[in-house]
């Protein structure tokens, strides 16, 4: 399936870009993600629990960053095996553009496929599942990266603090 969308994030482009390259942020924001570790600058191993329709399975696999054009765009792709449930693979082209000095417009083009039992039982639900997951991801991402912490819960605040601390540390 193919899907496109955009998300306004209340943070400068550089901040958003660094967050997009931060394994800890990605781990916190990817729905169902239980582990995400960098094995190189562009490669990560990941584990996530994913439900499509009646099938819920733990997927393990790799995430790769490519076509990197910092701080504007990259392609993030991943594939994972859910054992007897089948497999999932997908990629997203993510493009950032300035939306004034303190905001960024993030557009994404996602291509995702599932196979095996998960396709057989959840194939007709894959479009809406992918839309839901993308929505959840960008909501979390925008919460983590954006500045307005007033309405965020404690955990999100914690995540944010950690992120900015490391950001400052790196700078």
């Amino acid at each position, binding site marked *: 399936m193919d899907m496109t969308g955009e998300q306004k994030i209340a943070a400068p482009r550089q901040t958003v870009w660094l967050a997009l390259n931060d394994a800890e942020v990605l781990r916190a924001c990817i729905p169902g993600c239980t582990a995400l570790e960098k094995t190189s600058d562009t490669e990560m191993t990941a584990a996530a629990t994913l439900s499509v329709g009646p099938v819920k399975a733990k997927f393990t696999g790799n995430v790769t960053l490519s076509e990197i054009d910092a701080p504007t765009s990259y392609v993030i792709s991943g594939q994972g095996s859910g054992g007897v449930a089948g497999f999932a693979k997908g990629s997203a082209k993510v493009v950032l553009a300035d939306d004034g000095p303190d905001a960024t417009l993030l557009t994404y083009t996602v291509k995702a*496929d599932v196979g*095996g039992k998960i*396709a*057989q039982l959840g194939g007709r639900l894959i479009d809406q599942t992918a839309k839901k997951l993308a929505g959840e991801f960008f909501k979390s991402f925008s919460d983590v990266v954006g500045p307005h912490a007033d309405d965020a819960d404690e955990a999100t605040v914690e995540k944010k603090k950690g992120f900015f601390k490391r950001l400052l540390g790196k700078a």
Partner: protein
Amino acid sequence: MSAIIDPAALDRPNSYIGKSVPRPNLPKLVEGRGQYVDDVVLPRMVHVAFVRCPHAHALIKRIDAKDALAVPGVLRVFTGQDLAVVCDPWVAVLVHLAGMKSAPQYPLPLVRATWHGEAVVAVVADTRALAEDGVSRVLVDYDPLPAVADMETALAPGTPLIHPELGDNLCFQRINESGDVAAAFKAAHKIVEATFHTGRHTGVTLEPRSILADYNKGSGKLVVHHSTQAPHMMQGVFAKQLRMAEGDVRVICVDVGGSFGIKVHVYPDEVATVAIAKLMGRPVKFIADRLESFGSDIHARDHRIHGKMAVDAEGRITAIDIDDLTGIGPYSVYPRTSAIEGNQVINLVGGPYDFANYRAKTTVVLQNKTPTCQYRAVGHPIAVTVTEGLVDLAAEALGMDPITFRLKNLMRDDSYPRTSPAGMKFEGLSHIKSLGRLMDMIDYPALRAEQDAARAKGIYRGIGFAAFIELTNPSPFMYGIGGARISAQDGCSVRIDPDGSVVAATGVTEQGQGTEGIIRQIVAEAVGVAVGAVRVITGDTQNTPYGGGTWACRGAGIGGEAALQAGLATRAAALEVASAMLQAHADTLDIVDGNIVDRATAIIRMPLSELTRIVYFRGDTLPPGLPRELMQTRHFITKEYPFAFTNGIQACWLEVDVETGLIKLLKHWVVEDCGRIINPLLVDEQVRGGVVQGIGGALYEHCAYSPEGQLLVGSMADYLVPMAAEMPDIEVGHIETPTRESLLGAKGAGEAGTAGAPAAIMNAINDALRPLDAQVLAQPFSPERILQALGKVPMRG
């Protein structure tokens, strides 16, 4: 050729042929006391479940079963390599289908998996649940390969080859041609043309595929309890693949919960189950669940057909030209092959009509989807859809009523025997009488008036017709001449036991359709006893005469005739003994209602049980040389015609909701000529059930795939079948043109409903949509497709 039974002669006690006698197995089945394979429990029995490939095409790089074997209760894990040690691969080709090719298929693949759903690893455990736990812990490292998903590009340059050793993805191609098609189209008054699609669907048996294999290492014997249509064929298959003597293999199938052609094929997971039983020396059971059935039961009817018809100014068909393409999956299915469906299409198109010039090509290609093979009415629904779709288009082009056009072009009832342009030999058909009978049933002018009145109110109703022929009572010309060990003959043994009751053992099998019922009726009448005095044995290779089982509508016509002849021979044997005992000429005696009677006066001379008492316990009192075999076996095979064709016509009356695209079936009619009707109740139920299966393919059922070759149906929630609420009243009428090849005169009746229903529905939808200038030609005719035809929703790429 023989004389045919005179119905008048049947009007006497024990006259059952032609009567609606309830079948003997009904109380058992409705009380839930049938014995299906899953009901059989053996000591030391274990269960197998399969790891199935999630990819359409993939290299199997590594299989790690360590974690699976650690699951308590998991006993063994088998790969393709493990099973190849005891089991040989098979190649499904028939030599009479010239040029046909396929690749060797193993019970589990050795190197590559070639469809989503193919069994790759077998896990054996104490229970099915534990075996599934083991399955979830087997790690298979796949390297996904490009898949051939679209049959239209299967032969295109650059498309990957599924079996490189075959050279291309072509399984079979044939052109069936007669007359001068080019000249006929050149001289045509009108030409109509269309492209039809029949959607890939499957059989959905209530009882899934089931097998329990029990190999006894001590005796070297294999007993297989199998939900199958053809136990003798499977006996041969298991023996050959497992390198055993045929006599060491026994196949038993007691009750079968529906088959529809699904259960007449060799399935790799079933052969794997038998191979595992041989390796482990323990009974091994495999019951397919619904999810794996969708990806491993055979699919069927994945065809695209371009069709063209030429007509002259008088409205006569002068030529038909069709180009059929079908995708059959990565392997032709053993032993019937997956080329027969396409072959049937090009043999059956145009079947009911009188025309001279014919060309039909079928191209059968390999692809990475579930294998397809013979399913109820093999090829017929496709051929009838194309033919009747073109017939309606031609009638419209000529401005003729579809009934007038059919009446002008159908073969005359007095024109037989004759051969069709496609080369099919017809002994005797009744198209004109059938159409007349249909007109009596439907009140055509009233329906047209109702249609007009509804249209005026913005309600779109349509009536569609479909004339058809159906191939039944097949001879060895179907499979035997191609080298397959598929028996076209069948046998029946009839014996009279000491209590005067009768036992009939037949090679045809009971799938829930009532075979035991009709065999009982025939034997009761032939011997001369009450129907309740006859027991029927089916489905056991050790206890029934060798036969082909259930396929291609042969049970009544072939198995029934063998039963009739065996019953008559048993009666004659009993009368010979009676003649000696009663000092009367055998010709003057008869058996009626379990008594030996004087033929002329019907006076009872003695009960049959007295005769059997003497034969079995006081044989010393009979003349020494007197034959006393109260058991006779007869086999029957057709000889004059390769097939006994039946014919008929269907009509469908429906309403299309042009806002939602939903179709409501209002009424369906079938007139069918299956020759001698043995049991009208069972024939009507066969016809109705067949129509409902045709409705499924036409409106709901679809094995949908993603463009990557992922099967997208896994449950009854997304694979829709017609339920009671979707079924219209189905009225069935009959014409009887018995075959003269047998004394019984019966032809088959099981597939006629399925053959014609989709075409009648398609024509009715298009009749309803005609004022809106819309038509649908791709099955299933889903609401989306109806709305697309109406331009209300966009086409999907």
